[in-house]
């Protein structure tokens, strides 16, 4: 099985006034289909920038990104948007549900962009909410849900279109340890049962430890690769207070 994500010599720089900031400096990366990959690194190392590029939210300054059979690094804004609808599920740190919509309507949102009948939409939304275990809360608004529940809605919204890859930027960053554990269990379960490819940014070693592979990013470069059972991971898990 070939890689589902392939990144070659990826550069990204931002301009701030006259100053140019090199955020990503020539990254190479492959993610096999069905893998749960974690990206770690200090704050400001470029994790979010990399994730956004893989998710097609931004275009690289140089280099190539291929996801599935599509070269997304050369697509324009409108084309990328259409591509995202079908191929990317995005999970945010702060959930970012629309406060005026119910859980059901939030999950339905991406489906509005696809040529589906009302009945088909209903079917898919219900399935997604079942997968995250929230069928009893679908008429609730985000304000009436706990953080953990909101993140489940966020995950349901991300998987409802059955995307090629699931990307998550610090999905447990705003949750207490218990809810975080729940969400990680859910992600692992989705990856196992649906063979979803997941790319997750985190700086929580315990979260990263649930992934199959951990890539460490520093100052815009990939510096190291570890497995969940590496000595480093075991050590980090051991010293982490509960």
């Amino acid at each position, binding site marked *: 099985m070939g890689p589902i994500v392939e990144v070659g010599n990826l550069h990204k720089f931002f301009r701030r006034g006259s100053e140019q900031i090199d955020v990503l400096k020539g990254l190479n990366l492959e993610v096999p289909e069905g893998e749960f990959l974690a990206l770690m690194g200090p704050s400001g190392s470029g994790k979010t920038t990399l994730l956004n590029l893989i998710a097609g939210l931004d275009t690289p300054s140089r280099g190539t990104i291929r996801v599935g059979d599509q070269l997304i690094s050369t697509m324009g804004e409108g084309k990328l948007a259409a591509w995202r609808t079908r191929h990317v599920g995005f999970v945010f740190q702060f959930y*970012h549900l629309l406060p005026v919509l119910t859980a059901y309507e939030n999950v339905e949102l991406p489906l509005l962009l696809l040529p589906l009948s009302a009945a088909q939409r209903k079917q898919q939304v219900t399935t997604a909410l079942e997968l995250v275990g929230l069928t009893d809360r679908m008429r609730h608004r985000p304000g009436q849900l706990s953080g953990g529940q909101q993140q489940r809605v966020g995950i349901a919204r991300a998987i409802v279109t059955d995307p090629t890859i699931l990307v998550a930027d610090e999905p447990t960053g705003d949750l207490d340890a218990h809810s975080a554990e729940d969400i990680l269990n859910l992600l692992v379960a989705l990856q196992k049962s649906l063979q979803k490819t997941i790319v997750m940014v985190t700086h929580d070693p315990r979260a990263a430890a649930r992934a199959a592979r951990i890539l460490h990013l520093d100052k815009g470069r990939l510096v190291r690769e570890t497995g969940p059972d590496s000595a480093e991971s075991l050590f980090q898990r051991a010293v982490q207070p509960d």
Partner: protein
Amino acid sequence: MFESTLRSLDERIMAFLDSPWNVVLAALGLFALVLLYAWAPYVRLVVKSMRRNPLRTLLTGSATFLLVMVITMIWSVLWLLDLVTAERSRDFKAIVTERWQIPSQMPFSYERILEDGGATRRGDVKPQNVMSWQFYGGTLDPKKSRENLVFFFALDPAKVLTMMDEFRDLNEDEHLEMQKMVRAVQEDKRRIVLGRDCLKRINKRVGERISLFSINYQGIDLDDCEIIGTLPEGRLTLFGLMHRDRLNNALDAYERKNGSPHPLAKKSLNLVWLQIPDTETYGKLAEQIANSPSFADPAVKVETASSGISSFLDAYRDMLWGVRWLLVPAILATLSMVIATAISISVRERRIEMAVLKVLGFGPTRILFMVLAEAAFIGLVSGALSAGGAYLYINKAMGGLRLPIAFFPPFRIPLEALWWGPTLGILTALVGSIFPAWSARSVRVSQVFSKLA
């Protein structure tokens, strides 16, 4: 009753279908409904977005409501003025008045000559119909106080239904009633018909008899005038109608009694209407009358009804111009700015939300249209409510806008206003929301979610 309602509804529908524009508009409306249904989830999204800040939505809506209402009223007045000043080129009326003097006072004999169009040669044309107007003011009070004053038009009853526009659109019952009154006045010249408000003002009832003491014809008092009915609703509601013979006979009697004619005996004709088939005839008639030696003393002038009103409205021309080209655009600009402000605030508040929608795959154009749709929706609803409200309130509750412009009856809001309102609402909302919508469209996801933002 029910049947006649049905029939009038049917007539309205047929009249509606007569104009191709109406059919096109109706088709567009249907199409919009179909789209609305197809986009139901979007519509829901847009409507729900507005619920986020109900107060702001309400304020924006109210501002739109008020300003659209002001414009609806202004346009209703301008619309009517345009309508009456627009020249009709077929079947219109010309007005003959004294040339050099206001009020115009012509000898009654002019009416006979005008019936022939002042024709002197073969090939000269005649008007299709002629109607004489004489103004008689009288009060019920021998001391001639102004309280119980009634203004009468003394005219030929036979012309009331053939020449007067206000009685053209009567329904069947009103028409029969009017015919009956005309016949009654022809049978007994002492009979009079009064407008409803006039009757109310002098506190009399149909069937009562009154005596009139003239205020403009010294000594021509008219006894024993029997009120036989009221005029249908309309602009004559403060006036009365009497047989012209009543006035003319009284003037003759005055001469027999006093040995000399009444000072106004040869000045009792105030104006004459000519019914004209087309502009060509009008041109010929105007020339015949201008050249006729019969109208030498006093000289007369011929105008079309609209040119008479036009020259009257000349006094207001600058003001009307200002209203049309300065005030209305200023109001529209204000309205757009109000909407622009409200929509920009709400877009700025929802920057993150717009970015989230983009992440989910909503393209820039779609986001642009969602913002435009939200504004247009507020505009449409408030505009429709505003025009509908103005239509119902001003026409039904207030009985029209009473403005001191000339002798105009209260201005009614035309049915057309029901589409001006929503259209205005939508257009100003769209203009106002173009910039905010564009900025929502250009929200950069990576910026919103980076630590910088």
